[in-house]
């Protein structure tokens, strides 16, 4: 099992790097496939929650996907991309994600790659030297503004998002 994980994760890394060309995905809510990447274009098909799709390309907040015989654009946030579950690549689905959730810690160590864990953090001793180093890189608001202006970033008026109804109830993933 341990040996399998290394090539598996390497494969997933490659797939992700290839800008998700023909990557598998799962639909997260009942939604529509549009003929263009905007909601005023013609609806090509409806896709149910849980449906598998193939992600072909991406544009702004939209993904071009195939679902069954239909191809069209779906909102980026309506799809969970990539292969998730069970330590295997290409098998990402609801079950896989739920398994991830229910077994979050005590994972198999992937050779050469190590994550942080509770013990590292618990044992941590205050490091004033590193904190001082951090201070040397601090930017002022004025510097940040001119940095933004250099690449033409300007502020936009964007309203705060509402709290969705579902925030009160637990998600189906949680039920596992």
């Amino acid at each position, binding site marked *: 099992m341990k040996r399998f*994980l290394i090539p598996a*994760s390497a494969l*997933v890394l490659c*797939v*992700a790097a290839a800008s998700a060309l023909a990557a598998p995905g*799962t639909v*997260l809510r009942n939604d529509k496939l549009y003929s263009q990447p*905007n909601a005023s274009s013609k609806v090509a098909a409806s896709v149910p929650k849980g449906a598998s799709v193939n992600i072909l390309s991406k544009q*702004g*907040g939209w993904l071009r996907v195939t679902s069954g015989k239909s191809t069209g654009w779906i909102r*980026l*946030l309506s*799809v*969970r*991309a*990539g292969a*998730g579950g069970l*330590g*295997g690549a290409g098998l*990402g689905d609801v079950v896989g*994600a739920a398994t*991830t959730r229910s077994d*979050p*810690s005590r*994972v*198999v160590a*992937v050779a050469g790659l*190590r*994550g*942080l864990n509770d013990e*590292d*953090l*618990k044992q*941590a001793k*205050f*490091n004033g030297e590193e*904190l001082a180093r*951090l201070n040397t*890189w*601090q*930017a002022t*608001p004025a*510097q*940040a*503004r001119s*940095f*933004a202006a250099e*690449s033409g*970033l300007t*502020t*936009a008026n*964007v*309203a*705060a*998002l509402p*709290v969705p*109804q579902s*925030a009160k109830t637990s*998600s189906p993933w*949680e039920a596992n």
Partner: protein
Amino acid sequence: MKFKLMVLAVALVSFSGVASALDFGKLLEERINQELNKDKKTQPAQTSPAPDASQNTATPSPQAKQKIDAQQLGFALFGDYSPEEETRIGKQIAGNLLGAVPLVRDDKLQRYVNLVGNWVALQSGRKDISWHFGVLDTEDINAFASPGGYIFVTRGLYQRLNNEAELAGVLAHEIAHVTLKHHLKVLKQSSLIGALGQAASNKVKDSDQVVQNLIGNGAEIMARGLDKNAEFEADRVGIVFAARAGYDPWGLPEVLQDLAGLPAKDSRTSLLYKTHPHPADRLAELGEAVGSRLDAVHGKDLPGRFYHLR
């Protein structure tokens, strides 16, 4: 007027505080241990937030002390921290975290991250703190926020990013944790807030130790994580901060998409998954909030300016 009160408070402390400082520190320590143990056993039943709870359950301390608190520190009464107190807590946590994992030795990288982060933080509406950003030298895939504006992203996560909008999205999520004071609320929930207030107001000699006691061992508060609704909220608020900064709002969702594609059993994401809802859940939740609301927002990705780490 404020200055006068401060003088008065300092004077009071120097008269009444010093003598009892050590005893008080000990009391506080016991109290904190008690609270921490209680926390471990069960979630505290009283979820009603701070002010009343903290007053009732705070260390039984002399009247004089409470007077000082009320004047010098608003939160014992009003349930709020001063920026100084917040910074002090955050600095301790940040320093501890840096004791577990050092910063990447790359001035250009760190400077770049600070510029992007500060620009996003300017849209957050919090002007009372000075922001610090750093990239931590670990393969672990994660990002951390500490009160007072200390924000970290790991090298493992940074190296997965493709453009500045994605970096902005990740930092914006952490900035949102700070502006929404999520970690401070966790500390309050364990009803330690009153105790901390007194510790901060007294010139206790080993006051850093008192703050340390409050936050637990080392930087373990970072491993405890927040409630999942706090994470969803930070996604929702962060995506808007990034969009207000002129970035493509899809930076954070794209990072979540990428993480959703990682294998389940990867030691690099074990802490992330322990402390956060699964990325697929976060995407779904964000989708509910966003709907068509960001359809008209067209920001920048800036892949060309993104600083690539070898």
